[in-house]
């Protein structure tokens, strides 16, 4: 049984790698069929990515700026979505109160929010961070509120019988029961925040990966455009696979 589980676990990495290889092959074939201006060959794109990553100016002026914005947006999204989700999960009235805002943020197209926030916050950090945070927060809010609302009432009765303090109930029962869904939400919110941050930077920032994309598009430098997209994907992937997924697996492993 153990060897089977080990094989299954390792097998997921093998097939994941095969999936990436398949994507590169498909990309290569498509790039052969189209002009390099539309789809550059993977080799050119990887070379452009390497050039960018070996350029200290890109790291300081753009890559680090985007990372900082994404990190701050994620933090703000977790803080706002987590706090409201926690309260809304425990108090249904608060959920009803916050629900219209959540509904607006999840149904209005992202580009509309970008334009509106550009008008409110101008160009730069505040605009990018607030847009990305407001796209991530509703995901965390909904998942956390739902998870808290679905905590087994039998366990809550047990906690009442044994006189668990409010802190114990929150930490030992609610938080642990909601940890799995919370980290799942974090994975989705993290990906969204990366996407929306880049979009916001494309539309209204003078620094960051999105700004570089905007320049590359204007200069018709397609390999650099693809390389920047690849770097953005790698950032989102690294955060997901090396931080959020292990945390999620760890919490789900402890939860039934």
């Amino acid at each position, binding site marked *: 049984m153990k060897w089977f589980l080990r094989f299954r676990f390792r097998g997921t990495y093998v097939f994941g790698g095969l999936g990436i290889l398949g994507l590169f092959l498909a990309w290569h074939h498509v790039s052969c069929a189209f002009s390099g201006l539309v789809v550059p060959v993977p080799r050119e794109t990887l070379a452009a990515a390497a050039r960018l990553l070996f350029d200290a100016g890109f790291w300081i002026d753009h890559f680090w700026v985007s990372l900082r914005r994404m990190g701050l947006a994620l933090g703000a999204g977790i803080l706002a979505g987590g706090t409201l989700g926690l309260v809304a999960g425990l108090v249904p009235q608060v959920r009803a109160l916050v629900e219209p805002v959540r509904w607006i943020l999840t149904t209005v197209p992202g580009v509309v929010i970008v334009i509106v926030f550009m008008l409110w916050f101008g160009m730069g950090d505040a605009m990018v961070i607030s847009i990305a945070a407001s796209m991530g927060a509703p995901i965390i809010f909904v998942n956390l509120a739902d998870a808290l609302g679905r905590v087994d009432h039998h366990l809550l*009765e047990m906690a009442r*019988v*044994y006189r668990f303090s409010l802190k*114990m109930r929150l930490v*030992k029962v609610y938080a*642990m*029961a909601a940890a799995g869904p919370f980290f799942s939400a974090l994975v989705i919110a993290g990906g969204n925040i990366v996407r929306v941050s880049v979009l916001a930077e494309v539309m209204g920032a003078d620094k960051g990966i999105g700004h570089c994309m905007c320049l590359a598009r204007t200069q018709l430098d397609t390999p650099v455009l693809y390389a920047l997209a690849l770097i953005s994907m790698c950032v989102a992937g690294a955060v997901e696979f090396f931080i959020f997924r292990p945390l999620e697996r760890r919490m789900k492993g*402890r939860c*039934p």
Partner: protein
Amino acid sequence: MTEKAAVAFENVSMAFGRHILFENLSLDIAPGQVVGIQGPSGAGKSTLLKMAAGLIRPGKGRVLVHANPLGYVFQEPRLLGWYTALKNISLALEATGMPGDIAKQTALRFLKDLDLAEFEAHYPRELSGGMNQRISIARALSVSPELLLLDEPFTGLDPALKDRVREQVRAMVATTKACVIHVTHSKQELLPGTHALFTLDKGRLYPDTL
């Protein structure tokens, strides 16, 4: 309520819609008394225990409890799936204000008493239903309850184990002098040394022979 009663149900009435569960039900249980309650399925036995635990309020009348702390063995184990067997018990002890290290030692002692010491680090999902129920029993007994509520606690245990656990619970109850309300559907499952048995039927309690 008599002066000595640890738990008193005073003219308790309760109905779910048109279904009358209890009608002017009264019962006094003295400290240290072990009372068995049997009755058909759906008669309201578990609801009676929940009222004693303060989880449900009666529609009319009142339930007075002069016993603290409370131990409750539910029909199902109700363990926190994300904590080990030991932690599930020690948490109940910590909730009484016991320091963490002493709570762990006490929890381990109760696990030993119920032959579960070697499973202290196991999570509920790694244990059988019967083992989890024994952890639930250990948790209820570990808080040294003045009132112990048992809701068909031996369901899911195999017959040989059932007798052993019943005897262990009886011994522990005798030591702690806890007042016990034991709900069961079978007279054979009553704790040895039960003082009184009642049958709950159609909203009323009838004294029964042991």
